[in-house]
């Protein structure tokens, strides 16, 4: 009789009661340490050994700040070597942990690695540029600006998918919001009305999604894609027939003013980001926090999440699954619509075809990278905004790297993020699965 048995509880023949699965239940893979090592090696070769000889200059303060910080000057070659050595050490540590103790690296390690890598990359790019100087403050402020619609889009995704409806139509909601904001603001000469109209337009686009996905149980991905095409076609048509006929009347929405909070906005670097924004920019911060609190701290949020995770369970407790989903999707559309208004009321003061330029899809990626959490999605969107902004700045200062490669940056980041390199993310269990009552 072969007994390859192991007794899980030492000595005590008692069935396990409050068993917590051991962390080792999932074996530690080589994926992360090896990826880190490859990246560190690439960094060492390019940023270190092949690094530029010049000096990279990073401006920190902008003109309006109430105290000026001196610009940072770093020798590109030396810092490239030092930083890439740090990367090698970090990756080596992860490898040793896996090899010796079979443990995964501590949580801070990938984060620190990413930051050091990005800094090394920046120094390398700037140091090798024709004009080796950029404004760090400008870079960050620009990142936030570019991230605003992405943040709103990803919040829309979070609201929908937490309730169990896949929202591919973020792009359409952004575009619908942008168009309506421009039209209404132009006609009424009131950008704030445009903002409200954008929310309504986004909600209407979303309601179509909700109706078909929930009531008629059409495949949610297909409805989403169709909606994107529909909104794109509709706004394109109205743009060329209505707006183009009289741009003065129909496509000059005027800008939402930038509200500058005195003193606070003069703090270097963070001042402009937090305290020198348009209404839409401030709304973004408010929305992130409010949605996070609502989802995780309130009765409403508990019910929404239950509906997205286990609709039958919610139903047996008297929660109306499909109504919850419907209103969440609608709300998500309104949020994305506000994000869309950013294009026409803040960034550029007129509408053009396809003004959202695929940011709805980037927002979808930000939502996944942010693990369906409003705050996570916010930072993920910032990352995309940063990649986007870096790409344009770097092209301006002139680097040895072809600008096309730089333009790929946001999408490369997206692919890696969504491929789950940053850790397995788990969508809500009932995401995309319609609920049909027995």
């Amino acid at each position, binding site marked *: 009789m072969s*007994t390859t048995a192991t*007794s899980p509880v030492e000595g005590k*023949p*008692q069935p396990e009661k409050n*068993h917590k699965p051991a962390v080792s239940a999932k074996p530690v893979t080589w994926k992360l340490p090896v990826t880190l090592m490859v990246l560190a090696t690439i960094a060492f070769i390019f940023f270190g050994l092949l690094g530029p000889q010049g000096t990279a200059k990073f401006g920190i303060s902008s003109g309006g700040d109430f105290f000026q910080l001196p610009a940072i000057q770093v020798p590109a070659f030396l810092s490239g070597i030092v930083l890439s050595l740090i990367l090698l050490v970090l990756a080596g540590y992860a490898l040793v942990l896996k090899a010796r103790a079979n443990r995964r690296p501590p949580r801070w390690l990938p984060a620190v690695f990413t930051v050091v890598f990005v800094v090394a990359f920046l120094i390398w790019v700037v140091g090798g540029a024709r004009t080796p100087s950029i404004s760090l403050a400008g870079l960050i402020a620009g990142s936030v600006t570019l991230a605003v619609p992405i943040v709103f889009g990803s919040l829309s995704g979070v609201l929908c998918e937490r309730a169990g409806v896949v929202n591919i139509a973020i792009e359409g909601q952004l575009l619908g919001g942008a168009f309506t904001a421009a039209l209404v603001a132009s006609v009424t000469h009131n950008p704030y009305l445009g903002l409200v109209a954008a929310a309504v337009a986004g909600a209407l686009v979303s309601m179509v999604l909700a109706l078909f996905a929930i009531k008629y149980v059409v495949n949610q991905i297909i409805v989403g894609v169709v909606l994107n095409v529909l909104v794109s076609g509709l706004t394109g048509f109205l743009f060329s027939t209505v707006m183009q006929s009289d741009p003065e009347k129909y496509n000059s929405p005027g800008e939402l003013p930038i509200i500058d909070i005195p003193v606070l906005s003069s703090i270097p670097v963070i001042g402009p980001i937090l305290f020198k924004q348009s209404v839409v920019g401030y709304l973004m911060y408010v929305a992130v926090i409010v949605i996070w609190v609502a989802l995780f701290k*309130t*009765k409403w949020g*508990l019910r929404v999440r239950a509906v997205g995770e*286990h609709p039958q369970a919610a139903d047996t407790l008297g929660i109306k699954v499909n109504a919850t989903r419907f209103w969440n999707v609608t709300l998500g559309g309104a949020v994305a619509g506000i994000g869309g208004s950013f294009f026409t009321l803040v960034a550029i003061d007129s509408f053009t075809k396809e003004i959202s330029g695929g940011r709805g899809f980037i927002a979808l990626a930000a939502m996944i990278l942010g693990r369906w959490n409003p705050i996570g999605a916010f930072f993920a969107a910032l990352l995309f905004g940063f990649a986007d902004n870096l790409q344009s700045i770097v092209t301006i200062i002139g680097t040895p790297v072809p600008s096309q490669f730089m333009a790929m940056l946001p999408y490369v980041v997206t692919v890696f993020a969504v491929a789950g390199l940053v850790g397995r993310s788990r969508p809500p269990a009932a995401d995309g699965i319609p609920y049909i009552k*027995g």
Partner: protein
Amino acid sequence: MLQRPYASGPSLPDTSRLVRVLKLELKGITKRFGSLVANDHIDVVVEPGQIHCLLGENGAGKSTLMNVLYGLYEPTEGEILIDDKPVTFRGPGDAMAAGIGMVHQHFMLVPVFTVAENVALGAETTKTGGFLDLDDTRRKIREISDRYGFDVDPDALIEDLPVGVQQRVEIIKALVRDAKVLILDEPTAVLTPQDTDELLDIMRQLKSHGTSIVFISHKLREVKAVSDTITVIRRGKVVGSADPGASTTELASMMVGRAVSLTLDKAPANPQETTFEVKDLTVIAPNGQHVVDGISFGIARGEILAVAGVQGNGQTELTEAILGLHDRVHGSIALDGEELVGRSVKEVLNAGVGFVPEDRSLDGLIGTFSIAENLILDRYDQAPFAKGISMSPARVLENAKTRIAEFDVRTPSGSLAAGTLSGGNQQKVVMARELSRPLRLFIASQPTRGVDVGSIEFLHKRIVAERDHGTPVMIVSTELDEVIELADRIAVLYKGRLVGIVPAGTGRDVLGLMMAGVSPDEAQADAAGRHPARSLSENPAANAAEKPAANAAKNPAGTPATKPATNPAPAAPSVQEPGSGAVGDPHE
């Protein structure tokens, strides 16, 4: 009737909730789904403070009835009376408000929520502004937990808890909502025997606190152990009520509608050389988990090895790995010295492996194909059914005729779609197909799940016949009764590991402990020292590993067990939902 309301246990600050008891009556409940009559004028009265059992086979309509009572379905006809007043439930919320709680067969718990969040859901206590007040919920959970000795941590995540504890969370959920009548739908299907014992204890405790319980089950032993009243349901109709003192055979015949033999005549095994050997088998799931973890065993020709274990402990993956359905498999699987790891499924089948998958409608049959076609799914491209690229429909039909007769498949014609057959007949078709080739190994996973009692007898006989024919046979079953009935040796899996292999006569309580991960030696020592009171796994002296005959003493029903090799354990007809049976329980 043992009604001792709130006699034991610490009193609660709010004792009023213990005083109110409730009489529940279902009158003429009929539920139709299209042309299907799931419930046909059912009358049931649940007296306050009673454990009332609804006994019936899978697909008899028990779950439908309870979903009507819980407000999930609206009855086509009939009414529900609470304390003699008619009520209408438009949803589960109404039922809960009326004092009815339900523990579903498939737990209604959100896996990524904590216990407290799950309990609070739908009946949240909030601070101003809609903010959750989970402290209040935690307090209630601790209170109930203490009263019944549940030992549940309010902040544990559901997915980290074993099923037994999850079930308690479900009970807490109902109690927090002040349930006076608790419906338990097949609560023991997912439990180890020890957990089952504990659950029955909890039910008795609840009763003593004044909660009535509607206990839905098809497991006769449990029903007899705990019920005050038994109502038997067959094909959507009440066929009568029975006394818990009735014998298992009596109850079984009521349930099935004819006399059934619950025991299997099985000659002692005559094992020959070991031809099938598994060594250090590890299967890695896509998420990286070792779902089968270093398993080694062998099966001799002419013996049945039964693999026991609570569902989800690696049984499915083990059988699938043998068949070649998994990519990440380490170790060796050898049949007559031939290595099977790394071979395609087709090669494994051609090597002489017969395989009955655990879910016949998903993996065993193609419902829209005809019975005849389903019978040759494994050999459609071979003679005599195929010649070159053409098939011979006449031969296929001819083959079907023989098989249908041989396996007693109840159907007017072999050209009907397989999906139209009842569960038992579908299973016969799968079994007929897999046994129609010369086999060197036969694997059957959950061979009688969701199958009517009559078919169970037949299927069991065929499995034993295959053994006697000299084939190594491997049975995987989560039903301990079936394992005990069929096995010559029993292997127990727990969390992907082999806890041990024990001889057929091993006591139910020992097996139960092993199913919870306790090694065989410790399990036997523990079972011997265990206080037998109230235990369903009777016979404290059942360190019966070496004494198959001792088994005979363990018959709670008192039916005579004449043959030593025959298993006297009563309740073979235990099978699980979902109903692919003739009168299916429609699930949402």
